């Protein structure tokens, strides 16, 4: 499958002198679910702002759908890469849900009928249609998050990038959000999340990119999260499921299960092998 995002040797320095990105490279395939993992201050958010053309590379290249991001393509990329900010209060600013979701489409100069259709579709996708006339300050945190996602969906991007999507969400809202993300995935939208939640990355992502100090440490599938050297170097921790099976080397499991699903399968397989130990506590 083709790469929809390619980042090559990206450097970025903030005005106060902080070097946030120091030669970062990565590539993201079409239709994949990517988790960008890294500790606080690794450069995750700075990287995300580059993917949407908000920051332009100081050195290096960012290519989206084959086109390099330059001052000329910076407007175009905003309709291709939707960026959902961590705090929905930063993103949802209008006085009604409807107005906020229509903000992007209106900026794209679409006709009123197109805007209406897109806003309706986007609100349906996040199950917020009945709140369309509500003011954002009357919504719960999880609902505001869904409105923020609708605001990006209404621009019909091919790639959606979410910064720390599960932050501050209650379990129910997390579940809701995962549902929304898997529906988007089925619609062939590429989804990129930046997070330090290793459990989420292990459960959800089919590709993991680990960054630290503005550089890529590793790129690969979720089994990267079972690599002790990498996990230590990146100041992360093992996913809970991995941690449990790491402490049971006598089971001789390889590769180590990373998700609840994989763990259940492994345990069932073990039980089938040793029926006499079934009552073992």
């Amino acid at each position, binding site marked *: 499958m083709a790469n929809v995002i390619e980042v090559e040797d990206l450097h970025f320095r903030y005005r106060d002198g902080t070097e946030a990105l120091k030669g970062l490279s990565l590539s993201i395939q079409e239709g994949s679910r990517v988790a960008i993992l890294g500790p606080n201050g690794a450069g995750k958010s700075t990287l995300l702002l580059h993917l949407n053309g908000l920051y332009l590379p100081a050195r290096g290249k960012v290519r989206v759908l084959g086109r390099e991001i330059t001052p000329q393509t910076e407007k175009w990329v905003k309709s291709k890469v939707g960026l959902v900010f961590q705090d929905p209060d930063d*993103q949802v600013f209008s006085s009604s849900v409807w107005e906020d979701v229509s903000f992007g489409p209106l900026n794209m100069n679409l006709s009123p009928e197109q805007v209406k259709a897109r806003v309706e579709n986007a609100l349906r996708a996040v199950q917020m249609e009945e709140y369309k006339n509500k*003011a954002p300050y009357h919504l719960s945190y999880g609902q505001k998050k869904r409105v923020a996602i609708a*605001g990006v969906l209404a621009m019909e991007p091919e790639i959606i990038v979410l910064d720390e999507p599960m932050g501050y969400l209650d379990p129910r809202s997390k579940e809701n959000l995962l549902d929304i993300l898997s529906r988007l995935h089925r619609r062939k939208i590429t989804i990129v999340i930046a997070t330090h939640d290793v459990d989420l990355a292990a459960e959800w992502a089919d590709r993991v990119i680990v960054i630290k100090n503005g550089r890529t440490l590793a790129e690969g599938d979720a089994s990267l999260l079972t690599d002790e050297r990498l996990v230590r170097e990146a100041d992360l921790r093992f996913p809970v499921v991995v941690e449990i099976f790491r402490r049971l080397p006598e089971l001789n499991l390889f590769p180590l299960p990373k998700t609840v699903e994989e763990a259940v399968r492994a345990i069932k397989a073990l039980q089938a092998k040793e029926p006499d130990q079934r009552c073992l506590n």
Partner: protein
Amino acid sequence: MDGYFAPAGFPDSVLHRVDPRVKTVSILCFVALVSTLTSWPALLLAVLFLILLGALAGLSPLYFARRAFWVFPFAGALMIVLPFTVAGEIVASVEVGRFAVSVSKEGIAQAFILSLRVANAVLALNLLTATTGLCGLMKALRELRVPLVFVQLIEFTVRYIFVLAEEIQRMSLARRARAFRTGRSLLHKRTFLTLGQLLGALFMRSAERGERIYYAMLARGLGNPSAKKELRWPRGGDWGWGICITVFALTLRLLEPGGRLWQTLLK
């Protein structure tokens, strides 16, 4: 605070249905004209007219009274001070030791006129917001070509005042969690220092949030969207109400000097 920006009264009264642009302009004309009135009977007539319009829209005088309450801290001070500071025929005086304050008849009259003017302005604006709602009002201002930055200023203030209030609450809660107690007055040095830091932190956070909001807007392609037409052209009924409101104020304004002329002629 929640219902403050939503339309109130009968949801579908004639006044609610009047085009928001026409309503905004006519109410502003009304306030401008009525504020120049100088006789209390004319001002009182204007107040009655507004209360009548409010009744038509399903807004009780009590509703207006409750909202006018918020203006009192600002306008009230002047109303209280005026009778004491305007020179004229003294009706009462109080002596406290070597100090004496006196209330003048002219002062009372001026305070009365002032309060009627304020009442008119507050009533008129509340009538406008209650029958239009924040969303409608903002649309009207945008279509009336009010510079976008002013409209956004209002929208953002309303949108973020809750976020800021919550932030202050969380911050002061966090301070109290570490056993901070406010002193008896602002002169208490530690209280003053802590509150100062709290405000400073709030300013910094707001500035940072402002930047994040701006980036989030840019991320959705903030630019200069082509001027969008959200409202249809006003119809006959809209113009009718607009003219009715403006003409009423204009009539009062024009009749007032005439009225005084008759008074002087009759003397």
